């Protein structure tokens, strides 16, 4: 049976966050939390001689930007409570100290899968990150799974 939900949700932007500034301290805290020691991300002087001409955040720093307070109200629910099943992150351009990042989010797709434990519905929310120059720096697809 086809999934029943409001198809007009697909592709409709439901959220644009306020810009969040990127500071060297935020990058340093992220690096410390994952044990990052690569000088491209941790040593401003050494990074000047590197491929980016200065300090940049590790690529996965892009997943640290939070969606808005009402984000989950816009995630379609199916069956029991959903949970975070995974993420797909595309890193388009480096994030640098001094950048100001905005997230724009929409429902990308909804699909059903049947596994050993029964039927599951996946909801994918895409958040696109842009910097203060309106350049896309990353796309983050949040994959939420609901058991039917």
């Amino acid at each position, binding site marked *: 049976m086809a999934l029943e939900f409001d198809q007009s949700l697909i592709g409709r932007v439901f959220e644009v966050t306020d810009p969040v500034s990127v500071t060297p301290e935020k990058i340093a805290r992220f690096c410390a939390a*994952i044990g*990052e020691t690569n000088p491209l991300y941790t040593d401003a002087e050494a990074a000047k001689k590197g491929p980016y001409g200065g300090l940049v955040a590790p*690529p*996965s720093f892009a*997943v640290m930007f939070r969606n808005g307070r009402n984000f989950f109200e816009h995630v379609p629910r199916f069956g029991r409570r959903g949970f975070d099943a995974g993420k797909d*992150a595309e890193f388009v351009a480096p994030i640098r100290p001094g950048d100001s990042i905005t997230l724009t989010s929409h429902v990308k797709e909804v699909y059903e899968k049947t596994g050993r434990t029964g039927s599951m519905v996946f909801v994918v929310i895409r958040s696109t990150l842009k910097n203060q120059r309106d350049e896309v720096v990353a796309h983050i697809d949040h994959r939420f799974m609901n058991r039917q």
Partner: protein
Amino acid sequence: MKNFSDIQIGNTIGPREQFVSKDECRAFAHSSGFAAPRFTDDEGARKEGLPGMILPGNMSLGLLSKFVTDWIGPEGGAQLVRISTTYRVPVQPDHTLVFQGFVTHSVPEERTAEIDVWIENEEAERLVTGTATVRFDK
């Protein structure tokens, strides 16, 4: 510096071990604003039906990404352009995690390689799996 011509399907990365402490897990949760009890204290996690504290999914993604960028090395010459992760089993701190990967696919026209990557626990159970795409400058 790694070049695309050095990459062959079947090349392995790792294994590399990393002990992740509860304090590191808490630090990540607080720095990311995801300081839910399941990420910060055992008692709070058990109230949610978990065996104890778990790592935020974003932390697993960050650790797997770091595993790949460490393989690329600080000289650059390649970039991690995409990573896809699936959270199969909750990852608990205060354990040694094992990171592994192998090259499954390459596209010469784009100078990209796809690498299956995963995190195992001490019992060789795959907790988080993923696919990383690396693009080479040369």
